[in-house]
């Protein structure tokens, strides 16, 4: 067992974990943050994407012990004070989800994409989300949702 200290969605946790424990299992089973999902076992589907120190990472191929001292954000930590993140709003407005299982990972990956490229073209959105699979939407409305968020974030920034 190894002791780790991590900050998840602004809350500090100190836990004893097996060195082999995957971050996704740590989040889901130790911290009961079940918004991060598991859709495959080979790092293809991206349902498990979270942010570690601000960068999107697949938590199914990250060990919990690697995150000692890290700041982690999961889908549960994206909305602030009851205010949805523009991406969450975009997915809702544009019907960017159906079953919702891929959605947390998709939103977390898209958040990182928009951080790196605040005004992506549709093609850049499609390529930027290549690490995430959705089986329901055919991606059309996911692209619309990300574009909605990009526009909204740009408008908010301009207003500031």
């Amino acid at each position, binding site marked *: 067992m190894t002791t780790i200290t991590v900050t998840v969605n602004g809350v500090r946790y100190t836990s004893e974990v*097996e060195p*082999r*424990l995957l971050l996704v*299992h740590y989040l*889901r*089973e130790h911290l*009961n*943050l*079940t*918004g*991060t*999902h*598991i*859709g*495959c*076992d*080979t790092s*293809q*589907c991206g*349902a498990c994407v979270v942010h570690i120190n601000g960068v999107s990472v697949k938590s199914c191929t990250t060990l919990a012990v690697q995150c000692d001292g890290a700041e982690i954000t*999961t*889908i*549960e930590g*994206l*909305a602030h004070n009851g205010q*949805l993140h523009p991406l*969450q709003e975009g*997915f*809702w*407005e544009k*019907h960017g*989800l*159906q*079953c*919702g*299982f*891929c*959605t*947390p990972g998709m*939103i977390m990956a898209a958040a990182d994409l928009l951080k790196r490229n605040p005004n992506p073209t*549709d*093609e850049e*959105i*499609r*390529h930027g*989300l*290549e*690490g*995430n*699979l*959705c*089986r*329901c*939407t*055919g*991606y*059309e*409305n*996911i*692209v619309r949702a990300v574009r909605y968020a990009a526009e909204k974030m740009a408008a908010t920034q301009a207003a500031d």
Partner: protein
Amino acid sequence: MTATELKERLVGRALKRREDPKLITGHGNYLDDIKLPGMLHIALVRSPHAHAKIVSIDASKALAMPGVVAVFTGKDMLDINPMPAAWQAAGVKNYPVPPRALAVDKVALVGDPVAMVVAEDRYTARDAADAVEVEYEPLPAVVDARKAVEPGAPQIHEAAPNNIVFEWECGNKAAADAAIASAEVVVKEEIINQRLIPTPMETRGSIARYDALTGEWTVWMTSQAPHVHRLLLTAFVFGVPETKLRCIAPNVGGGFGQKIFCYNDMAFTMWAARKLGRPVKFVEDRSENYKYSTHGRDHITEAELAGTRDGKITGLRVKTWANIGAYFSTVAAGIPTTLYGRIITGVYKIPAAYVHVTGAYTNTAMVDAYRGAGRPEASYLIERMVDRFAAEIGMDPAEVRRKNFIQPEDFPYDNGLGLLPYDSGNYEPALNKALEIAGYAEFRKQQAELRQQGRYLGIGISSYVEICGIAPSAWMGGQGWGAGLWESANVRVHLTGKVVVTTGSLPHGQGLETTFAQIVADELGVPYEDVEVQWGDTQGTPFGYGTYGSRSLAVGGVAIKRSVDKIKEKARKLAAHLLEANEADIVFENGRAYVKGSPDKGKTIGELAAAAAVAYNLPPGMEPFLDETSYYDPPNCTFPFGTHVCIVEVDPETGHVKLLRYIAVDDCGNQINPLIVEGQIHGGIAQGLAQALYEGAVYDEDGQLLTGTLMDYAVPTAAMVPHIETDYTVTPSPVNPLGVKGAGEAGTIASAQCVMNAIIDALAPFGVKHLQMPATPERIWKAIHGK
């Protein structure tokens, strides 16, 4: 609101979904999110062989590991029955061999579970499963359905001689033979509809809890049909009263058919929970889902289409080998028979058609319904053959379609294949609209010019019809379906005027909570926010057959409407009593009952609900409360249709296909929520075009699944799917009072052949007449180079 003010109708409006807030914030409640106190975890020991005898199982090392509670094998579970074979091919002898909870004595596919480890946590269970030693005696395997029924093939089940599950036919053989023998033109093709893996993003699993004092189970399951699973698990597998089991489907992360069926894990979690007295959980990982949960399609077909030189189709003869996999899955035999053969002629008037299907066991994963289920296979076949025929006689494929379409005046249309009559349709406007959006005539000119420059563009057309809202029960009974196929709904208006709807349908991404609430709000004239839709728990919802076959709106939605109608009828009676008016003079409109000609003299539905609930002053004989249940069994199926058009460019150097445009014109009858309809169409198209270009489950000859993970099985990413242009025609269904047809499967049923027709059109200068799917660059390059 006064009686003259009309409440704005919600039906037809693209409301955003009420399901979404929890799902976009990470507060969905999927199966693996559920934790019960004292819950144990199951890991399976699965066969690495496709076909083998189990010689011995030694669990001693596993049992010695700390945290391991028990190890069980198939022999321990002989006190429960195999899974049920609920839909057998109609009118012929079937040889159903469904799977047991765990394999006994012998395995029939890679991934067949031979033992289960139950442990305190999932890591320990996995470690211990690896420590179970199983000795096998391998047997020869067969994976191809046509080879499986040849003499000398390895025999998989004693109870199914020659690996035959059924031999089934429909249509008129003599007429088809004669049409082909006397035809001016006959085109013949071997058409393979490759095996696909449905791949809902959430895999499958079950959690079972047992109360020894009452003998009652609660099972949480990734299920599209929890009421059916409750029935099958109690009455057939365990032989206990149905009342002893409560089934709950929490949020289900996609199904696409794979979660319709009664699976072994539902049974072995129940068995283990009873045996151990503690709750147990089993969740597949992705590679287990790929190996053992059901696959779709997998047809080998020899097709012949006959016609005249001027483009009239005169006959169709089809011989199909349908791969059923290692065991008989719940409704496996219905898919390649009723849902395939009976609609093989598609949107065309073909005077003579005949279909013969052989269902075969092989050493592969079970094959059952996958989005579209039989109808994509039928639609692919006829649409490829029509294009093949058009090319053969040198006629424009759009023109051949127009010449052979069933005409508007032909409805209701009997296709002569044992199906109920097509309800309504008008095929040419959808085709014309799609071609107009595509700029068809202009494209043909551009295509000819570009060919001169060595660029190969192609356009594909796919005109389809499908069977949705599958019913009525009496007809389905005759199709071998082992039960009814109606749906139910309860609607009640509480004392506060708030409305609770319970449904036996089981949304898993289709947005039924939103759609159903739109219908109820309009019909009852109450605010949308005042309508709550409950589903997913056999405790508290009326029996329903579940969500699949694009039937939840056309059957389940209509059951809701009928319950609302009954509520309105009772409310009118109550209003007449309270207003001291003649019942015949009461008008119910916009959520208010009033006396005809005196709109100010009335009661709102809320006031009437309160009056019915407190029951101080009811008409003689009237029971309290506005609470009504309906069981709706439609008089017919519905038949949505449309035309999709796709434009591609093929790079002859590399064989790479670029999707330039994809246009969908669909007719699903009336639309309740166009935003949701469009989402269904998009998703369906992505799955169909993925079949055309990317996906295929591949087994080697020894029965090893070579596409066993998402690394090898090409579920498309966002960059692999094009922008999709959608449009509609609206031909309301006369079958139901909502005029709806269904939209969940249309995209998948229309799209694979649309893309393939475009690719083959692009390759026409190279003499390519047909290509098997998926049209990978390698396959295309070989076709161009005649290899």
